[in-house]
């Protein structure tokens, strides 16, 4: 009997390894899900004399998208964001992360601007509060200011259609 212990243990190991092949060890789920979005007051990119804070959007369902002009993957999701902004289903607000103001403005001019408002997080402190570790990252925030979903990496059509939009609809109703 005891001689079958090794093969049983090995069997369990293989099962886990098999499951592991489908997982991505680098994807980090956020501990902020179902918690209130951290507060901040940052100056706006377009008008630095004005500030913006997430509490201003209580009562709305909205997306917070972190991006930067130096971020290569941001370009991947940008057309999707533009299309989303045009459709008007959910407003997108931008957190310009550890970037240079003129570079950021230039980038928006070249690539298009899907954001209602952009704020400048030049030292990354707000990003740290949101647990940002690699742009782009996008947060879906509900009417009470609670984070309901976080996308790590560029948004893709599948995630948008299967996860984000249904969530937006249910939060809006």
């Amino acid at each position, binding site marked *: 009997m005891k001689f079958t212990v*090794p*093969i049983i243990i*090995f069997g369990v190991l293989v099962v886990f*390894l098999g*499951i*592991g*092949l489908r997982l991505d060890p680098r994807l980090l789920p956020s501990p902020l899900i179902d918690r209130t979005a951290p507060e901040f007051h940052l100056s706006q990119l377009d008008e630095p004399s004005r500030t913006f804070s997430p509490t201003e959007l209580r009562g709305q369902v909205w997306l917070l998208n972190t991006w930067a002009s130096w971020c290569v993957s941001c370009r991947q999701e940008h057309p999707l964001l533009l299309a989303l902004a045009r459709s008007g289903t959910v407003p997108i607000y931008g957190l310009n992360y550890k970037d240079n103001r003129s570079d950021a403005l230039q980038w928006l001019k070249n690539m298009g601007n899907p954001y209602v408002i952009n704020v400048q997080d030049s030292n990354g402190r707000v990003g740290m509060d949101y647990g940002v570790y690699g742009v782009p990252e996008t947060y879906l925030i509900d009417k009470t200011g609670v984070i309901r979903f976080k996308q790590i990496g560029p948004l893709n059509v599948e995630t948008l259609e299967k996860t984000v939009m249904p969530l937006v609809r249910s939060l809006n109703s």
Partner: protein
Amino acid sequence: MPDVPSIGQLSLIIALCVAAVQASIPIVGAARNRQSWIAAAVPLAQWQFIFVALAFLSLAYCFVTNDFSVLNVARNSNSELPLNYRLAATWGSHEGSILLWVFILAFWTAAVSVFTRHLERVVVARVLGVMGFISVGFLLFIQITSNPFTRLLPVPADGNDLNSLLQDPGMVVHPPMLYMGYVGFSVAFAFAVAALAGNRLDAAWARWSRPWTLAAWTFLTCGIALGSYWSYYVQGWGGWWFWDPVENASFMPWLAGTALIHSLAVTEKRGAFKAWTVLLAIASFSLSLLGTFLVRSGVLTSVHAFATDPKRGIFILCFLAIVIGGSLLLYAWRARTMSAGASFAPISRESLLLSNNVLLAAAAASVLLGTMYPLIIDALNLGKLSVGPPYFNSVFVAIMTPAIFLLGVGPIARWKKAELPELARRLRWAFAVSVIAGLSIPFVVEWKPLISLGLTLSIWIVSTAIVSFADKFKAAGARSILQRIRTVPRNYYGMQLAHIGVAVTIAGITLVTGYEVQQDLRLNVGDSTEIGGYRFDFHGVAFAGGPNYDAIRAEIDVFQNGKQILRMYPERRTYHASGNDMKSAAIDSGVFRDLFVALGDPIEGTDAWSFRIQYKPFVDWIWAGALFMAIGGALAFSDRRYNPAAKSIGLREAA
């Protein structure tokens, strides 16, 4: 000039066919007692080696001659790359390193076919058959997912260059040495599986798998030590072990392999522990295969991991399941009928070796658990978790401490039955010296409990070795000391040297971890700082260069007691072809300390640069100890009793 890559590809296909035959015919022949089929094993093994060697040499040739029509060469090499690194680039990628794996496996297979002429043909047939099966798996893997001879059209003018971290002598020696060990455990595995299959777990199996296992263990020890040393001087932050999954992937087979060589000692001498030894033989190579999977499948994150592809992961996993699952099933089936071997008392050399094995196995299991745990938690949908050095250090030290204590007692104890009072009496001075020295030495600098523990264990090993030597050489009869020294078998010296190597490594680890000093700081030209009793003066930077890189080199003068003792040149290199940036730390090695200076980033707007300066006492002892272990292993497997031609054995050709 024939198209070399095509020769390589063709050779691989032929090798696969030969290996397939090698994996089947001799095994069937052994089962059906067909002499011609049994005899075919040896030539098949040797032909497989010839074709694999041809393939490997073809790839090396492509690298050396800058044949960028081969995708692998274009991705990993460059015409400016110096010759030795072009050669090393052969195994600098996933595909190339798998080919190296197969080449080394074929080499061990051929070696087994040559150096086992004194063994029964049936046994050799099964062993070579099993090794052939493993070769088939890897050769098939190459053809299906990882062919190094894939062509690239249009042919680029030049290549991407070898990863800058790999452009180093470490790259030339570490992988081959590591694989010699890793893959070498396949011999012990094959011997065990062959013995299980033929129901022949006998004295011959125990005696003759031992030198092969010792050889593989010796290579693996070197390979791991080289990897650690390379990491130390190339990474730029002075670390030498991080319990990274890839490092663990090589350490687990080492732990299991260490348990195996000790278990084999008992099985050879006393016929005991057969089931346990077989299981360890299977486990050691299984852990090697598992390591291969972990490193290439993307299942775990690691600094060392190769670029991943799910297809590769699936293939290796299936192969693993067949090979390891198959051997463990065979084990479960046959182990019940194994004979028990000589009996032994609860306190005896056998029991001490057994308890050491249990502890080593527990250590290996813990490393495996810690490495796999993030994956297990993720797979169970319980979130993401990291398991890093703090975990491994705590658990490993806790488990190994009793093992190290027993290491001192084992060689002193008698076989079969040892008397506890007698043991205590013979070891009391060693115990006293170790404890007193271990407790008091740290006060010289700063007393910390773990340093005390480490030093106590280290001195314990050395003092018990002295006791063992004294007993061994006490002249019994009229023989002189010199004669006694000559008659003691070589593997005794090997054992003691290896154990002393362990002591040296433990001392090095203890002292460097306890007393190292590190500073991350900014220095302006003309500034200086004091670390570890040395003064470092920064004199400025200059431009420098190498064959395929440009560098910025800092000049640091080092003073001790007011006198300048050396000048160090840490560099930041930028490689032409890849644009990669790399730090090249300046290290001054000494017997009692290393001084380590790494150049960081320039501080914008000033002439200052950031530096990491470290004082690392006794760090080289870590690798010196490993060297002793390896020499000890070499002494052990070159012992006269493993030379089949030696007269003392009196072998006659087997039927």
